[in-house]
Structures are given as C-alpha cells and as structure tokens.
C-alpha cells in the first residue's frame, strides 16, 4: 500500500509542476485563441532570473520578486513588439512567431546567463513531510497550494471581473468584442503579461524541485501543452487537472510498468483523449459556427 501512496504523491508533485505551466497556456488561449509556444520559456526565464538574482547577492525573496516582475515585463514586451504588429494575420503566423520568440528567449538566456544547471533553496527547508507513510517535499506543497490559489483566482477573474469577461469575449469573437467597446489589443497585452507572470511564478516555485537551465523550457512547454490538451484548452481547472493526471500516469507507469516508457504511456493517454474527447476532460463543448 505504501508504494502506491508514494507513487501518487510523487505524481501529484510532478503533475502540479506541469499544471502550473499549463495555466499560462490556457490564459493566452482563452484571450486570443493562440497557442503560445514560448510559455515554457517564460517558466524557464522566471527560474533563471531568480537564480541570477541570488548569484549577484540578492536575498532569495527579492530575487524571486524581481524575477517575476522582469518576466512579466518580458511577456508584455513580446506582445507589443512581436504579436501586435502582425495585426490580423492568420493564427498560424502568430503561432510560428511564438516559436521564434521561444528560440530568441532561449538564445539570450544562454548567452547572458550561461549553459549551467542551477537550483534554488527550497522555501521551507529540505526536510520532507510525511503523509500516510509517503514522503513529499515541502516545496511540493508550496507548488500545489499556489496552483490551487491560481486556479481559484483565475476562476474568479474570468467569471466575476470585467477584465476577465472582456478577455474571454475577445477570444470568442474579436470583432463583436471591439464593437461593444472592449479594447482587444489591451486584452491581448494583459493576457500575455499575466501568463508570463504565471509562468514566472511557476518557474521560481518549481526550480527548488526540478532545477533549471536555459533549455528546460522546451520540455516544460511540451508537458504543459499536453496537460492543457488533456484537461481542455481554455479551462484553468482543466489545465491543472490535466497536469496532475499526466504526472500521476507517469509516476504509476514508472512504478508498476516500466520507467523507460512512462512518458510514452502518458502520451498514449493524451492521444486517446484527443481522439475520443477532442475538447479535453474539462473543456467547454465546442460549437461550430457557420
């Protein structure tokens, strides 16, 4: 019994790191209908900037705050300089631009912060917590709690604030949204800044567990994207649930089947969901408009 609980706890921690990345994807998708392939790089940037801050002698708290602020500014700048000038070009062009942005961010970080792997000190020390006989890192609890808070916050944001509703309206129909007085460019800017912020928060939270280097964004982006698809693009709860499901499937596969094929099994689950429930487990039912 104890191994099962340990696998579940491990999967939960791992999955919540995927889920945190997935939340940023979902936010931009909700506002713009764009799949932002630079989302993993935002997560990486948050972690790397915090590491760089600690390296120049800042306290970890200040380093983290500055890293999150810096990444948010980068997110906003990406939207202003790269996305907005494209205007009404096809979504495909915008998606490819995000691929380009990812390469540029990765290249700049490698150039200025180096190729080494780094780690941050865990927020609450190295002593693990014991839950039902399983060990979980204290940092894992930080990740889970933050993720839960973010999901709740986004839920409130989208359903109870004017900005949130306006943002969803933009994705649904940009023309109609602008007709009722919503500034679509402002909402796109807001969504990029917010998702960069979320990414950076995720990055600094998971770095004590997963470590970071200039190239971790690729894998994080892929896993986060997969988590989104699994949970249903556009739903914050779905993104988090998808991430945790992915992590738990990987962990259980490694424990009971084969550690070599754990990622493959998780992706087979993803493909199955895609084929049989294309909108994901928690996604809104898609209505085709003519």
């Amino acid at each position: 019994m104890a191994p099962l609980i340990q696998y579940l706890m491990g999967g939960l921690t791992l999955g919540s790191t995927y889920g945190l990345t997935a939340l940023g994807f979902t936010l931009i998708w909700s506002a713009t209908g764009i799949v932002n392939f630079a989302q993993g790089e935002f997560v990486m940037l948050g972690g790397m900037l915090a590491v760089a801050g600690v390296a120049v002698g800042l306290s970890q708290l200040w380093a983290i705050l500055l890293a999150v602020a810096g990444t948010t500014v980068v997110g906003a700048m990406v939207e202003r300089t790269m996305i907005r000038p494209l205007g009404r070009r096809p979504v495909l062009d915008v998606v490819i631009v995000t691929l380009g942005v990812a390469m540029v961010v990765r290249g700049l970080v490698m150039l200025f912060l180096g190729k080494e792997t780094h780690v941050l000190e865990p927020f609450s020390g190295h002593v693990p917590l014991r839950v039902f006989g399983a060990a979980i890192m204290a940092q894992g609890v930080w990740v889970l709690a933050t993720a839960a808070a973010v999901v709740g916050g986004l839920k409130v944001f989208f359903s109870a604030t004017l900005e949130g509703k306006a943002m969803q309206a933009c994705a649904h129909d940009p023309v109609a949204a602008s007709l009722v007085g919503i500034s679509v460019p402002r909402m796109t800017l807001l969504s990029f800044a917010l998702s960069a912020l979320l990414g950076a928060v995720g990055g600094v939270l998971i770095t004590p567990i997963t470590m970071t280097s200039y190239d971790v964004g690729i894998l994080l982006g892929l896993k986060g994207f997969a988590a989104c698809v699994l949970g249903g693009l556009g739903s914050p709860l779905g993104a988090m649930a998808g991430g945790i499901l992915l992590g738990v499937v990987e962990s259980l596969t490694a424990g009971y089947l084969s550690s070599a094929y754990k990622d493959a099994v998780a992706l087979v689950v993803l493909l199955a969901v895609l084929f049989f429930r294309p909108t994901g487990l928690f996604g809104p039912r898609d209505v085709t408009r003519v």
Partner: protein
Amino acid sequence: MRRPFWLQVAVPIAVMGLLPLVFPGSYSLTVLILSVLHAMHAVGLCLLVGHAGQISLGHGGFYGLAAYTSAILSVRYALPVEVAMAGGVGLTVVVAALLGLPTLRLRGHALAMATLGLGIILNILFTEAVELTGGPSGFVGIPRLSFAGVVVDRDGAVYGLLVAVLGAMMALATNILNSRVGRALRTLHGSEAAAEAMGVDVAQAKRVVFVLSAGFSALAGVLYAHYLTFIAPSSFGFLFSVELIVMVVLGGMTSIPGAVAGAFLVTWLPEVLRAFENVESLLFGIILLGCIRFFPQGLAGAGASVGRWIGALLRCPRGEQDRG
C-alpha cells in the same frame, strides 16, 4: 492560379544540379545532400502547412520511423536494401494514415497536438527499444544505398539520385495543387463549411496531403539512413520537426520552390554561422521572426520583390527618356 511547371520544377532542379560545380569538395557535397533531404520534407510540409493550413510537429518522427524501420529490416532481418526501404516508407504511410484519419476530422490545433504526441512517442521507442534500435547512442552499420545489387557509394551519385527523387516529389506536389485536391484546399481561404455544403470534401483533401507529406518525409528518412549508414534518435526529435516548419515559413509557406530554397538556407546557415556558434539559435529565432514580420511571402516573395525591383530599374531610364 495555375503554376507554370517549368518554373516550379525544372528550373530549381537544374540549379540544384549545378550546385556541386559551384561548391566542389566532399564537405560541400555532404551539406548539399543533407539540404536535399531536408527539402524533401519541406515540399511535403509546404502542402500541409501552406495549403492545408495544418501544423505538424511530428514529421521528425515519421523521418525516424522510416529510417529505423529500413535499418532494422536491412540489418537485423538481412533484407535487400530496396525491400527494406519500401518497408520503411510503407509502414510510415500506414501509421500516418491511422493518425490522420481520426485527427483531421477535428478542427483547430488537433493535428499539431496529435503529431507532437506521436513524434515524442516514436522518439521514446527509438531510444528505449535498445535491442532493436541500438538505443540512444545510435544504430551502427546500416548498408549503403543499393539498387539491384549496384551499390551507390559515391557521394556525387547519391546527390544526383536525391535530386532526381526531389524533382519527382516537386512535380507530384505541383500536380496535386493543380488537381481536385488542390482546388478543395483552396476553399479553405473562403468558408470551409460552404465548400462542404457544395460537396467539396475538404477533410479528404487534408488527409491526402497529410499522408503524402508523411510519405515524402519517410522517403527522405530511408535515403538518409542508407546514405549516412548511422542513425541516432536525437536526429528525429521535436526540435527537428520545428526546424522543418521554419524551412517552410522561410520559403513563404505556399511556394514549393520557396520551401526547397528554405530547406537549403536552413541547412547552410549553421555552417556559415559557425563563427557565431553561441548565438546561432538566437539568430535563427531572429531570422524567423523577421521573416514572418517583413517577408510573409518568404524567400519566394523576396525573390519576386527583387525581380520586380530589377524590372523597375531596367524600365526606369526609358520612362525618364519618355518624359524628357
């Protein structure tokens, strides 16, 4: 818009035939061979991305599946190279069809997600099935290309063969665009639903193009495996799939000769940029961004602009004379 066949196929092939004379030496020839192999993917992806409006992030996986299948059949099962190659291409096409059938019914980014997932699954197989694939450090000792017992072992001959295959692919792709499938895809720019109401089977056209592009990548894969005689999983990963998309974008998305030029550029550029090794990925990103922003028509569009510009220069003096 009907595309003149000679401009689309004959001229690019002639230019490629002359390149080894301009860039002699075995190193240059290796770069050219890799460029042509990449161009094969680019031609297929030009149809898929540029004309069917679908992104694939898994063509690297198809490339690898064909390469590994052919390597395994020819080495572990001692089949003749031609048979192994046919097996590699055949299996890949079947896998692509099985993936495309359910996926291309769906709208949006379903194909991007599905191909991404499949590409990574395939890469895990190449890495973990050590007994069969040689694992992460690669598959050694693949026989060289041969047909009916004649081994094609000179790089010059390999290059000629590859250019011929690429020419056939370009011709086929051009014909497809001028056929019913091409016309069906053109309706994508208008209303897909309206087209379907008129009886145009857009989904079927997308499937044809997807499977064809996977077939092109598979053919490139088997040729690559038997040219290099060594393959490793890292050559067929997600980043390679992205690089293929970059080639098509640089080429201007819809132009077949443009895609080929994009493939040559993306393959040559890192060799030219060796002096800047640490900033190479950065430069790649900047070029990609600049291209989308300023040359949405890519190399093809840039070529056309330069053509118009030269034409204008040539005409200009006469115009002034007229006025004078």
